[in-house]
């Protein structure tokens, strides 16, 4: 099926030998042990944050929490979830992600479609315009000045427009479109369909899989973004949840580094709890969809690696 771009498993490398020597078995055991340890190490930060989110602040403060909650309670979850600003910022993140992804997909898909037509005059220039921005960009201050001059500060547009085309994603889509069967388009042309029609009625329906992949790429990027919000938004009711979290963390660490170790410790420990809960609540959507969509991401990366 053309529409199925899921990769064959990367895992499906054929075993190379049939019998294994003793050294190989030894190596295999060592290898497996190492990988298990690596995975535990990589998961540990999640586990400890999860444990902290259910722990009492006293236990965290006493340094007792590692794998397992100590002083189990749900009060922190209750406290965070009853915070209006938390939900408002969470809603903002959803809004920015949806709008940003919609805009990004529209622009990326149309441009990739245009770039995928090898006969198009000026195609090289159009590709060059995009690719050059991968290697050279305007820098922080000119971007800031531009966004301010356009009057986009303190609006959603400052967050969703500048990132609307990721050149990497663009090239992935272009590669995909280039590999669609040409015959369909030709047949459609003979039937009198223009490029608009071919794009909307032939190419897009055939590209559901790559579109899904790109939607995932973009939405994760928008969901995770915080810096644009940090730069361009002043009003906390506009913040996305990532910035909310960042301010929590930054607040906690300033208290700590200001040396108020003894006196200010109450605020610091409360926020260790709250930080953990906010982190968990922020990653939950990603963790929930992750197992199901992981292979789409992988296939997207592989498509992008095919030289275009």
């Amino acid at each position: 099926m053309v529409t199925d771009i899921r990769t064959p498993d990367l895992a499906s490398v054929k075993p190379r030998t049939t019998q294994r020597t003793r050294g190989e078995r030894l190596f295999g055991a060592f290898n497996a042990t190492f990988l298990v340890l690596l995975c535990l190490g990589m998961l540990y930060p999640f586990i400890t944050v999860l444990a902290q989110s259910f722990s009492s602040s006293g236990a965290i403060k006493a340094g007792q929490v590692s794998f397992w909650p100590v002083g189990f309670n749900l009060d922190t979850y209750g406290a965070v979830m009853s915070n209006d600003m938390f939900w408002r910022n969470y809603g903002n993140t959803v809004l920015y992600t949806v709008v940003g992804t919609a805009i990004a997909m529209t622009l990326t898909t149309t441009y990739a479609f245009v770039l995928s037509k090898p006969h198009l005059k000026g195609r090289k220039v159009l590709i060059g315009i995009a690719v050059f921005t991968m290697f050279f960009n305007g820098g922080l201050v000119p971007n800031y000045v531009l966004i301010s001059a356009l009057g986009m500060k303190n609006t959603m547009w400052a967050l969703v427009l500048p990132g609307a085309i990721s050149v990497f994603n663009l090239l992935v889509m272009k590669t995909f479109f280039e590999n669609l069967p040409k015959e369909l388009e030709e047949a459609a042309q003979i039937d009198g369909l223009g490029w608009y029609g071919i794009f909307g009625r032939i190419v897009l329906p055939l590209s559901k899989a790559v579109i899904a992949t790109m939607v995932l790429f973009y939405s994760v990027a928008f969901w995770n973004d915080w810096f644009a919000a940090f730069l361009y938004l002043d009003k906390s009711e506009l913040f996305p949840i990532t910035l909310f979290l960042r301010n929590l963390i930054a607040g906690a660490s300033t208290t700590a580094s200001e040396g108020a170790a003894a006196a200010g410790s109450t605020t610091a420990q409360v926020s260790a709890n709250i930080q953990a809960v906010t982190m968990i609540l922020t990653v939950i959507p990603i963790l929930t969809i992750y197992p199901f969509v992981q292979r789409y991401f992988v296939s997207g990366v592989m498509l992008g690696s095919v030289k275009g």
Partner: protein
Amino acid sequence: MTHPQPEPPPRAAARGGAAAPAAPPHPPAAKPKARARKRKLSWKTAFKRDWQLYTLAIVPLIFFLIFKYGPMLGNVIAFRRFRPGGSIFGDEWVGLRYIQMFVNDPSFWHVFTNTVVLGSLTMVVCFPLPIVLALMLNEVRQQYFKKLVQSISYLPHFLSIVIIVGMVMQLLSLEGTVNQIIGAFGGEGIPFLQRAEWFRFIYVGSEVWQTIGWGTILYLAALTSIDDSLYEAAKIDGAGRWRQTWHVTLPGIRPTMVVLLILNIGSFLNVGFEKVFLLYNPLTYETADVISTYLYRVGLVSNNLSYATAIGLFQALIGLAMVLSANLISRRTTGTSLW
């Protein structure tokens, strides 16, 4: 080779196979006029035939012009005095004044050194590790176990940098796991994030955590495309597993390594601004402050916009020059290049 090995699945299969058989690409225009096309099409004919395609490109082009090329041109304020509220391209030429300013600014050279150190450390550590991990994964025979390891190791890639830093801070805080372990051995707690000497270690370590798994994807893909008969031949020649790895596997993934290395070199100076920004504090500026964080403070906190732009432009130009030269060198020496 006497045993014909089944070919590894061709790349096209990765995209879902049943695509076009290798038909020679030809313009789909079926009009007789186009069939009698000359090699060079005039713009007029091109527009007439493909105006719909060109119109589709308009909005994305406007996007590129405004949001990508606009700021690029905005870099001229590195050479012009900029007045807030005035033209975004500055008001009057001041020549190389701002360039001279940062060249003579000791703080600039301090952050420059920090950037180079942090960038090199990151590259030296984070470039080879995914290769090692990919090779190890490649030796795993139980597919479910391999998939599990892959899934787990990709995970940090999907998290916001804010979450990553939040977790790093929790782990390294005075009450965190690392200090619990130190305490268990009777050591004094160390406020890692307040110690300049620990910053680089923390930065590179968390970078490894975040990128090692995801970085294996392309290598694993390259590994699947190595022809099995090469291994057979090596074995017949008496090569053990290590020598097979050295003489077959590594050369097989070399093009991938080169391309990724070039890309790495290009982004060498753009050490993860966001991560440094979230991780550092005045106590660790000594080792943590990099060009991008410095220019952020100079430009947007202290409002020396032109000065900061000059620094940013310098950094971007170095990045561009490094990609171009890495690409050139690699094309000359290994025949692999980005373009």
